[in-house]
């Protein structure tokens, strides 16, 4: 095979596109290949175009890629959506002949007709197994490991009974058999299992956030369902009780952050997960938590657009809200995940930072990352450092909001005699009594912000990739980093001098790293998936540099190709 293959499956929502794709991805991962998936689906439950794309490679995969090599279309709509993207070297597998898809020959595009509907409906009398017929054909055409697929099908349908397992296996075989007897392979794509399985795990971004929370010691999770964040709750609802933790579905996002605040006051490590509209509702309590100095974590899985916007699409447009949302001046920390590994490790970091600095920490993920699955190295728990808030020792006078050099003051937990205090959102004295004098407000505001004054020295806020003298440097955040990494690699292979800075923490803005980075390059480029160039704006304001912006805002992430083209344009 070439270095890697990108396969896209398109069909109608509810037609099994996603589950067929999931199984292929899983089988590839089991065969030792690297895998990265990318899905989009309609907001509606049934109908509409659903797409599952996955990239397999013997080598490290940096992003979801530019486009596809192979496209499998289940219906005419999926064909219409994708036909314009077909390029020489691509393969089209479609439901046909006689299924309403009538592809015109395209120079250099290999086309295979597999009568998916006919085989499932007429030959097998089981119309719902069309996706399994397609899967069988794809497995046969590109040499995916069939044994692994058979096992996955068994596992998936075991609960539904032997009969259902057999129908699906029969459909899988029928698809494969059709290819063996009727199709002469004329493309170059073959999947070769390479490495042994190794100690890897396969999971989605939302699952990785859930797992990260659990590993970080999360004991309490409360949420209100919202796409694309709900799977965090679904996963934790299943697994958190195993560690004696609690998952609550609240009446709304205000209540869910309220629950989290109460749990945190009581001493628990607590978290909520939401998307933009939910974070909007939480901002008053976010300010309260920061003022009352309570550690907590909010995962904001960004969707596209304002209001209800694009519920199943993704954008990087909640940064202003996460960094700036809320009235009055109050500190908070915002981390941004770019990969599945980030979703896991940054969630652990988020809990640690929340505990250390006693303030809310927001993790920004997004819709693409939420549903993407990726194979990652199994985390080594022994290597993880888990932090806990500084607790009052019980000796001496207890001042909950004591003015200290670090800004951090010890906290007591209910039940601790001598530790009684009122956690409060009113401006207060060191002992938490209401105090509104200008002196106190100034002193306490400074105390609260002092906690994170040196955070850049205490936390690895960004990763630098360069050697200190490049023509162009790229600063990117969140998912965009994936496509930037791939574009940077390609540009360097072509001899361009490009460097990159990958911030993990986007607020407070890692000013020192950004200034240093900016002085090492001739130009700074900042690609973002939002209209306002939100991070560029913060960087401009905080670091005092003036980057070249590249904003896209259609609800889809950048491709490496887009970034590469922009680098070449501005260099």
């Amino acid at each position, binding site marked *: 095979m070439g270095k890697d293959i990108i396969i896209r499956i398109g069909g109608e929502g509810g037609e099994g596109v996603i589950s067929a794709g999931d199984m292929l991805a899983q089988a590839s991962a*089991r065969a030792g290949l690297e895998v990265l998936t990318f899905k989009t689906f309609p907001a509606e439950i049934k109908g509409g175009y659903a797409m599952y794309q996955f990239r397999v490679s013997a080598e490290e995969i940096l992003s979801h890629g530019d486009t596809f090599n192979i496209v499998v279309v289940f219906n005419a709509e999926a064909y219409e959506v994708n036909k314009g993207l077909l390029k020489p070297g691509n393969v089209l597998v479609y439901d046909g002949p006689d299924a309403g898809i009538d592809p015109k020959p395209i120079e250099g595009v290999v086309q295979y007709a597999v009568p998916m509907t006919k085989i499932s409906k007429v030959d097998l009398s089981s119309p719902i197994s069309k996706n399994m017929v397609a899967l069988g054909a794809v497995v046969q055409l590109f040499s995916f490991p069939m044994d692994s697929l058979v096992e996955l099908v068994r596992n998936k349908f075991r609960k539904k009974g032997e009969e259902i397992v057999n129908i699906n296996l029969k459909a899988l075989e029928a698809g494969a058999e059709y290819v063996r007897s009727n199709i002469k392979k004329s493309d170059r794509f073959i999947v070769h299992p390479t490495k042994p*399985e190794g100690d*890897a*795990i*396969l999971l989605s971004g939302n699952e990785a956030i859930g*797992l990260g929370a*659990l590993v970080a010691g999360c*004991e*309490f999770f*409360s949420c209100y369902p919202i796409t694309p964040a709900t799977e965090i709750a679904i996963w934790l609802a299943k*697994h*958190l*009780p*195993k*560690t*004696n*933790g*609690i998952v*609550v579905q*609240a*009446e*709304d996002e*205000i*209540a*869910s952050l*309220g*629950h*989290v*605040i*109460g*749990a*945190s*006051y*009581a*001493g*628990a490590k*607590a978290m909520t997960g939401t998307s933009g509209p939910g974070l909007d509702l939480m901002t*008053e*309590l976010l300010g*309260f938590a920061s003022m*009352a100095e309570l550690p907590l974590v909010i995962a904001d899985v960004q969707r596209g657009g304002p209001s209800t916007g694009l519920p199943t699409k993704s954008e990087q447009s909640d940064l202003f809200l996460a960094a700036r949302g809320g009235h009055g001046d109050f500190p908070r920390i915002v981390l941004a995940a770019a990969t599945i590994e980030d979703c896991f490790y940054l969630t652990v970091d988020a809990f640690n930072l929340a505990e250390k600095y006693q303030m809310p920490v927001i993790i920004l993920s997004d819709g693409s990352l939420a549903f993407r699955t990726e*194979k990652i190295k*199994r*985390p080594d*728990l022994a290597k993880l450092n888990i932090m806990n808030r500084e607790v009052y020792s019980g000796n001496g006078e207890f001042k909950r909001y004591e003015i200290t050099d670090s800004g951090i003051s010890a906290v007591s937990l*209910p*039940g*601790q*005699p*001598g*530790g*009684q*205090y*009122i*956690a*409060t*959102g*009113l401006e207060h004295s060191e002992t938490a*009594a*209401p105090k509104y004098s200008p002196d106190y407000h100034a002193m306490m505001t400074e105390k609260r912000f002092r906690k994170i004054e040196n955070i850049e020295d205490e936390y690895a806020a960004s990763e630098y990739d360069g050697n200190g003298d490049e023509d162009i440097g790229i600063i990117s955040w969140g998912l965009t980093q994936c496509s930037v990494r791939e574009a940077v690699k390609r540009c360097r292979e072509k001899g361009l001098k490009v460097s990159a800075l990958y911030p993990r923490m986007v607020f407070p803005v890692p000013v020192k790293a950004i200034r240093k980075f900016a002085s090492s390059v001739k130009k700074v480029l900042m690609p973002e998936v939002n209209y306002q160039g939100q991070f560029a704006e913060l960087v401009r304001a905080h670091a005092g540099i003036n980057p070249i912006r590249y904003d896209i805002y259609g609800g889809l992430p950048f491709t490496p190709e887009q970034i590469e083209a922009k680098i070449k344009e501005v260099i």
Partner: protein
Amino acid sequence: MEVTQQLKPKDYRSDIPPVWCAGCGDYGVLASLTTAFSANHASTANTVLVSGIGCSSRLPYFVTTFGMHTCHGRAVPIATGIKLARPELKVIVVGGDGDNFSIGGGHLPHVARKNIDITLIVMDNSIYGLTKNQVSPTSRAGMVTSTTPYGSPDVPLNPIAYALVYGATFVAQSFSSNARLTADLIGQAMNHKGFAFINVISPCPTFNKVDTFEYYKPLLRNIDEVHTDKGDKIKALSLAMTMGRESATVPIGLFYQENRPSYVELLSGIKTRNKGTNKPDLEKIIDVFKL
């Protein structure tokens, strides 16, 4: 552990003096609360008082227990979080009618139906005190306030009827100056397993010139005179709907009590949540993602 010696009511008072106007009904509630704490040997370390925003919501500062003074309307969910994380704590919410029935009104049905094991004491003065004289959800129809200069067009809500219908398992009403009854009900509520709701009519002499101590005194009737079967919800509801604040009699006392498992008891996965006692097998959970 704390000394179990019984504290006197005044021992529950902090050195922060109340900021309430002279004659405010909330003083009576504070006194009844500390009386109830004393009578029930409440531990100042294991009790948490949570409030939202309003004159009445200042109360936690005046008491020596743990406490939280939070955002307008959000005391109930915050108290819920405390109780779910640490079921051994006594969690009590105090606040106003605006706080709990208006801005926080959306939380009430859920804390009640989930039967979260907390006590909610509403100091109901039928006016917004802290923001100085605006109409409240329990203001009577036609009431003149700063935002309803031509009389309020709204129909008042009936706190007792709501609590009953939402599924609260302990529903009571008291009157601020009836210290003995109020303290007694607070004690019962604290010992009740599940969500306990007490509406304490607590006049605001500064802004509410209608629902005054003098207005109420002759109308108050101990509900026990007409209602002894506290498990009879329909009777309780009928009394709540017919003997309201604008009728000839205003019943005070316990309307309803029911024994229903609390949320904490029903949740799977919670045992005694003592830190570090049981180490979960995280590796086994990570295995879920093994290929």
